[in-house]
């Protein structure tokens, strides 16, 4: 009995390149070509179709970072370059997503320190980077330009553009040939609208990743899941304004009641499972990059993504 899991779709997801190797003018050890699917990622039998990537989120000022991560990682969280290196060498992440939380202090103005932090992280890890810049319109422009300039040639993914504030980040991405994250609040139409705004100021389709905004499991995940499915299907039906790969980060996972109030001995485990189940389901809905904060989730997701398609011994054990 024949079946076609492309459902008559004609579109394909565009590709976004993250990270440049020496051959391409960067210093990364690998360059990811994200996207390219013609159906949902985990339905694609083609061995060349991309496996979802796992990014570990870190920050340069852990004051407001989850205490669960601070307990698990210890002093590491105070040295951002060491943290980035460990993400690659110990935790096995595909990408590092650096939140420049230092820029979120009141009256922050030390733009030069942003450049230094980024330089240190770039030399500590050879993984492609995602950089989350300022959260404050007053300094957006300087922070993003500094990041863009410092990492020129590295093909960063810069975050995060929203409908109300995307010009500074787009300017930095355009000036230094980086890609950017376009986030909209769980809605296929708003996602499309933002992509059109970005296109109108010159950001190319192959330099945008969609962040549909991911509510964690139990806290709106179902909305995000359906928004992701709808974005993906619109793309596969031929809407090029939505035909970008997606990035998903359920940042609430570590602060929700179930995790926060878990018995201390169970707290890491709860945090990891919460991130894991959210990440797997998001991948099934189309997300190409899954961001997590607990180091143990990284390994678990990577093992799962490798096994989901090959499965190796899935039937043997029964």
């Amino acid at each position, binding site marked *: *009995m024949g*079946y076609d*899991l492309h*459902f008559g779709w004609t579109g394909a997801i565009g590709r976004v390149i993250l990270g440049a190797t020496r051959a391409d003018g960067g210093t990364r050890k690998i360059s990811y070509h994200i996207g390219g699917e013609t159906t949902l990622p*985990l*339905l694609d*039998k083609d061995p060349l179709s991309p496996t979802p990537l796992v990014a570990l989120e870190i920050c340069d000022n852990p004051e*407001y970072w989850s205490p669960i991560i601070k307990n698990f990682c210890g002093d590491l969280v105070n040295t951002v370059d060491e943290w980035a290196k460990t993400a690659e060498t110990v935790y096995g992440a595909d990408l590092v997503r650096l939140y420049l939380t230092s820029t*979120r202090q*009141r009256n922050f103005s030390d733009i030069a320190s942003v450049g230094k932090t980024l330089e240190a992280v770039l030399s500590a890890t050879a993984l492609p980077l995602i950089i989350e810049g300022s*959260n404050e319109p007053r300094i957006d422009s300087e922070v993003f330009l500094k990041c863009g300039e410092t990492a020129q040639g590295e093909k960063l993914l810069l975050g995060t553009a929203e409908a109300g504030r995307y010009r500074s980040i787009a300017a930095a991405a355009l000036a230094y040939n980086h890609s950017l994250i376009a986030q909209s*609040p769980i809605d296929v139409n708003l996602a499309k609208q933002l992509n059109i705004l970005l296109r109108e100021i010159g950001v190319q389709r192959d330099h945008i990743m969609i962040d549909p905004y991911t*509510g964690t*499991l*139990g*806290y*709106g*995940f*179902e*909305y995000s*899941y*359906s928004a992701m*499915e*709808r974005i993906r*299907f619109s793309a596969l039906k031929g809407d090029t304004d939505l035909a970008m790969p997606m990035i998903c980060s359920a*940042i*609430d996972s570590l*602060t*929700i*009641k*179930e995790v*926060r109030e*878990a018995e201390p001995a*169970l707290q890491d*485990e*709860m945090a*990891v*499972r*919460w991130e*894991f*189940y*959210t990440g*797997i*389901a998001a991948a*099934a*809905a189309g997300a190409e990059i899954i961001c997590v904060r607990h180091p143990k989730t990284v390994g*678990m997701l990577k*093992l*799962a993504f490798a*096994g*989901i*398609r*090959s*499965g*190796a*011994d*899935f*039937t043997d*054990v*029964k």
Partner: protein
Amino acid sequence: MALKALDIYKLLPKKNCKECGDPTCLTFAMKLAGGKADVDLCPYLDDQSKSVLGATTRPPIRLIKIGVGERSFAVGEEFVLYRHDKTFYHPPGILFKVSDTQEPEEITATTIRVRDESFTRIGTELRFNGIAIENASGSPDAFARAVTTVEESADLPLVLISKNTDAFNAALIQVGSYQPLIHAATKQNFREMCALAKKHSCPLVIKAHGLDDLAGLAKDCVTEGVKKLVMDISPQSPGDFITISTAIRQLVITRQSPDLGYPVFLDATHPHLQDAAIALGIVKYASVIITPPLSPASAKAALTLRQNIYTDPQKPIQMNPGLYRVGTPGKDAPVLLTVNFSLTFFTLEGYLESTRIPCFMLIVDTEGLSVLTAVAAGKLNETLVRDSIRKFDVEHEVSHKTLIIPGYSAPLSGRIEEATGWNVMVGPRDAAEIGEYLHEQWKNHES
């Protein structure tokens, strides 16, 4: 090709006997046309009409009930590939697996856990659904003993797994009348398995790899008189499972392959892919999932994912408007305004609890809309805020007149100040930043 209600009506007896449960033959015909009723409910149809109607009018996926009594559950009767197309109706049963080679104490412990464990989210109790008992020993006696051990502790839906007809006989003498799901009929043994299923009127799992073999086996079982079927697609990997289950869902809802119109079974047992298989099974069309007992963390995550995916996307879940307390706020505690969309409420509440700053949440009635949509639709406006402050007597709860509003409602700040006479502070757009905001802005505001 689906028939219209009037075409169906012509084939019905037109007696309006009500024996199908509907008041008239016409209403029954309308239900059949919508795939919401089974043609077998009409006792007066001749076989020819039944066969004409059967394939095109029954729900694309047959409803199968497993177990009896309070904890029994039904799966199937799904109509869409994607929850946003309508909704998913029948959440998968997740059953913990035990083996007849385990010590009786272990079997009992697992059974009692499934019987008693539950956790409440958004007013709903989440539970696992039953016990799957595997005849790993191969011995009919051991199997019967294990089944009895489970049965002595709880009246839970069961899946009985064996390759041995004698073992089934021994087990079904004990529990056959409780409608356990029996696993599995294959191309080789389907006649014996169908005889067992018929004798005890149990639902039956059929197992084959490949859609043609599954469809053939399903037809063979129906010919043998067994229609309560569940399909084990014996996947080679979790990815293989979602590929085949997606294909089946697609083929049956478009009525291209009515022979595959049964719920799908998934055994998630695996040394390291178990959680991935469960998560994928939940989102991609598994109806009965069996797994070795899950750790407390996996258990909560799996049950929560199932609740999320099977929430009806057509109905936003709302909170009752009112003044809610986080911790034990004093008269000088901050008052934060937000909407009565439950998700917004729970997300903000979670972040507020973790700031450890006691405060009030003023929840206003936006009919379940989120902040962004409520502002856009004009549901969140200065009149609503003014009326809510009065209605919930906020002025007597606190000694100040400062209201923190969500970042996305910033355009309303001036109008709210005018209408209420309160000072308005615009909070962050993202609830995740509320801790930082309170520590910095609110504390500053106080000093």
